[in-house]
Structures are given as C-alpha cells and as structure tokens.
C-alpha cells in the first residue's frame, strides 16, 4: 500500500469503517421495515414506504441538510443526544449516520423482495408444528431470506462507500474525521497537483464498487441455490 499517501490511506480506512458500521447498524431496522412492508397491513404503510424511499429520490444535499437540521448540535435530536454525551455532527459517526440513511432504501428493497418470495404457507406450517411467531421468523423466514439480506447488505455497503453529497453537507470534510473516500477525491481535485492522488482513489473506488456488486451477485446465487436445496 506504499503507493498510497498517508492521507489517502486514512480516507480509505475511514470509508471502510463508516460503511461497515452504517451497514451493520441499519441491518436490523432494514429487516424489520422490510418485513413490515411485505407482510403487515397497517394504516400509514404507504407513508412509511415513502419515507424509506425519500433518500433515494431527494437530492443528497437536501438529505444532508435535513440531517444537519435534525442531528446538528442545535437540532432537536442532536440536542437530546448531546445531553447524554453523543455528538454526531462533524464526527465519523455522523458520516456513518448519513451513509446508513442514504443506503437504507436499497437495503430495504432487496430484503423486502426476498421476504415477499417466502410462501406464508411455510410460516403457517411452522406455527402448527409448535413454533411461536418469533421462532418461525428465526427458523423459517430468516434462513430463507438470507440471500436477500446478504445482497441488500453488500449493496448498502457499496452505496455507503460512495456516499458524498449528504455526508459533506452534514459532517463537512475534515481529514481523519469525516473525510471519506469520495470527499478526499473531491478535496484532492481542489488543490493543484492533486490529480494523481485523486486518480489512485478513483481506481480504489471502482475496484471496491465492482467487487461488492460481484460479491453480492455471487453470494445471492449461492444462498438461493442452498435454500432451493439443489
């Protein structure tokens, strides 16, 4: 890795950390929301669906600004969190929050599709055999949607790696703190002679994105074949 400068390595490491935590922390919510949208009929279901998809259709800078208004030091949620000692504004945790929210719709869509593919009759069969709702989910639904969950998580990770607009709006571009890979590329391009470093990061970005996509396809196929029992 000695062909990368220390600032570039720092940006790469930060991006991996931000994306990892963004994916991991949103996964349980993603599964829950996907399950609710796929299986439950409740008032406000369409509103929830719209809210989940909002980051996908809003300009990222708008999402970032809304995050700043909400989770900023003066924002209602930010102030509450601040009272218990958690500050996300201008920290890497804030970058993870922005990346997680931007990746959330992709994750939910992938998981929801796989839940809708599970025959509810199998879940009924589990119930008649003595499994409670939670056990049916753990022993029937979850194993069967694992391909979708994995694909959704990898896709979300890739999206988080590339998140720029909302991140830079919400937590700015502080080297070592909030300067992720895309922010670093942007920063290098702003200074004379930074093109070489920017190019190196661009190549890394392409490799990670393509790798994630291929991995997600591969894992999805493998897991689907395992579930189908072939």
């Amino acid at each position, binding site marked *: 890795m000695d062909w990368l400068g220390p600032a570039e390595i720092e940006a790469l490491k930060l991006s991996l950390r931000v994306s990892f935590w963004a994916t991991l922390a949103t996964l349980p919510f993603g599964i829950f929301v996907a399950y609710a949208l796929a299986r439950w009929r409740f008032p406000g279901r369409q509103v929830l669906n719209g809210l989940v998809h909002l980051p996908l259709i809003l300009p990222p800078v708008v999402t970032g600004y809304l995050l700043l208004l909400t989770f900023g030091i003066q924002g209602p949620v930010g102030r509450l969190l601040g009272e218990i000692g958690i500050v996300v504004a201008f920290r890497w945790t804030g970058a993870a929050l922005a990346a997680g929210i931007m990746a959330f719709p992709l994750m939910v869509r992938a998981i929801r599709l796989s839940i809708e593919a599970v025959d509810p*009759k*199998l879940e*009924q*069969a*589990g*119930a*008649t*055999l*003595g*499994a*409670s*709702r939670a*056990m*049916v989910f753990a*022993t*029937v639904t979850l*194993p*069967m949607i694992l391909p979708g969950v994995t694909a959704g998580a990898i896709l979300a990770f890739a999206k988080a790696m590339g998140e720029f607009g909302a991140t830079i709006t919400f937590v700015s571009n502080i080297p070592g703190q909030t300067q992720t890979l895309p922010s670093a590329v942007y920063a290098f391009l702003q200074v004379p002679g930074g093109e070489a470093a920017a190019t190196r990061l661009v190549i890394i970005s392409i490799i990670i994105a393509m790798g994630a996509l291929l991995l997600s396809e591969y894992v999805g196929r493998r897991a689907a074949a*395992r*579930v*189908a*029992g*072939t």
Partner: protein
Amino acid sequence: MSLSVQLQHRLPGIDLDLSFDAPPGVTVLFGRSGSGKTTIVNAVAGLLRPEAGRVAVNDWVLFDIERHQWLPPHKRRLGYIFQEGRLFPHLNVRQNLAYGRWFAPKNARRENPDKVIEMLGVGHLLDRRPARLSGGEKQRVAIGRALLASPRLILADEPLAALDDARKAEILPYFERLRDEVSVPILYVTHAAAEVARLATSVVALQDGKVVRQGPAADVLADPSVAPAGVRAIGAVLKVRVLAHHDDGLTELDANGARLFLPRISHDIGEDLRIRIPAQEVILSKTPPQGLSALNVLSGTVDSIRSGDGPGAIVSVKTPAGIVLARVTRRSVNALGLEAGAPCHAVIKTVALAPQDVGGRIISNE
C-alpha cells in the same frame, strides 16, 4: 380421545354452520370442493379465526369464541399434514422431521424418531433436501414431521390430492398404519370416496357448509341422499380376506363365505381388507344369471330402494357378504318388480374392483 367441533363462519359463497363429534380413529370430512372442509381444518388448527364456535379435544379447549378463549396455533399441539406437504426447503429431511419434535414439550415426546423413520421408509432420504424428493417421498416426510411433533390431534387436508394414482397407492397404507398404530385422533379431509372407504372410522359428510350426515363409512357412502361427491361416490364397503392368487392373474377373495375375484393385488394370502364396490358398477338380476362374462355374483334379498329426483334409484341388496349397492333406473326397478324382501342377484364386473379401492388391514375390533 375425541374431538368436538362447533363452528359458524361466513365466507364468500358459503355459510358455515355445523357441529360434530369425532370419535377416536380417523374421522373423514367428506364433501366436494367448496363445502367448507378446509375452513374447518384451518379453524381447528388456528390458522383461521371463525366468527363463532368452540373446538375441544376431550376437555382441552382450543378455542371458544364466546368465552374469548383462543389458543394460538403453536400452542395447540397439532400435526397438520398439508396437501402440498409444505416441507421447509432450506432444511434436509432429518431437520424437517426434527422440527416439530424440537418444539414439543420434552415429557410429551411419545414417538420414537427411529421407529417413525422406519415405518415411513424414509431412512435413505435423511440427508436430502425436499427439492430432491419425489411427490410421494415429500408426503411421507410430511407425515413423519407431523407425527414426531407428538400431536394430540392429527389434521390432514387432502394429503393425496396432489399425487398421481401410483403415488396415492404408495401413501395410503401409511395413513392406515397411522390409524392402526397411533392412538391420536385424525381429522382427514378428502373428496375421494376410495380414501373414505379405506381410512374412515367415521365420516362427516358436508354440503354447503352443513353436516348432512355422520356415521360409519359403509352407511354414509351408501346413502344416496348424501352423495357428497356425486352419485359416482356411492358404493358399498365389504370386508374380505385374501384366499388365493391364481395363475390367470386374478386374486380370489372370501367375503363371509361368498367368493369374489379381482385383478391380482399385492396383499398376502390371509390378509383382511376392505374393498369398495361402486354402485354404478353393479347390475341386478331377478333370476340367477347365466352366460354372463362377469365373475362376481352375490345373491341376496332387496333390503331397501331409495330414489332421488332423477331417473335413478339406489337398491341395497342384503347378501351374505354384506350390503351391496346397485345404481339402476327407476324403470328397471318397476320392470323387475323389485321391492323390499324380493330375492335378487347382484352382478359385479371384475374390473370394477379397482386396486385403488382395495384397502389395507382392518382394525380387529371393528
């Protein structure tokens, strides 16, 4: 163990309002599709909440809508055998079989897995996934999975309907073993008269959500006013014993002294069987028939004649072998001068004794 069911529920196109008690053994819910059979089973299983009613196994109440009692499905301790098997595709056969057993209370685990695996002949399939099983194998595993949950009640919703005739013939004996070797009551849904004749201890005939008749299989199947699956389903059930297998491809049966022949069956000599004789395959004669190609003639006296609205009538003939039913026209009844007590001969075409109507062993106390 007995099951008591009371149910009221409205579905589009059908108004369910019924009650029945199921004695130990196999109780068959018999009726054409749309008569409410599956709704009843789903309500017993807790997959559907009826508008009113009560279901109890002995004094253990599964639900009582009026008293706001409702056990969720997973607390009902059932073994539900579905039409499509519904095996878990992500688990192998061994794990599928163990699924219900795992949730059963430890002190209630009656069935020995090895014995069940042997009884169902699935020992060589244990490591396979359901996707690599044939239809018949899937259904055998489904039976085992339900049984190993150590249920207090077994439900089977047309478990053979999705199988071809050969597979049906493969699975039916396992249900007979279930009936004869397992002491759990079985509620069995079907619209196939042959399955009723072979399995039923008691039959509940359904029509448009109502019970039209309940009783032993021989009585219900013989009743033309019921005809849950059309007149073709009407038929007599006889108890017979295998006497001999002949070289010309026929098997000779003894029906309480009378002789019957049917195409070679695989059952052993000396074995007790039930056979069903569809009423439409029987013709009647006042004089002893001569010069006929049919091999089976049972002589007796007319017991009763029941006619419906159409041109047909069902004549039941008391013979030494048991009651035999014949579906004839009312015109023939008049022409032959048939009336209760009149001697007559029932002629049964050999081919009418189709192998799928041949049942397995009979419980001795029947």
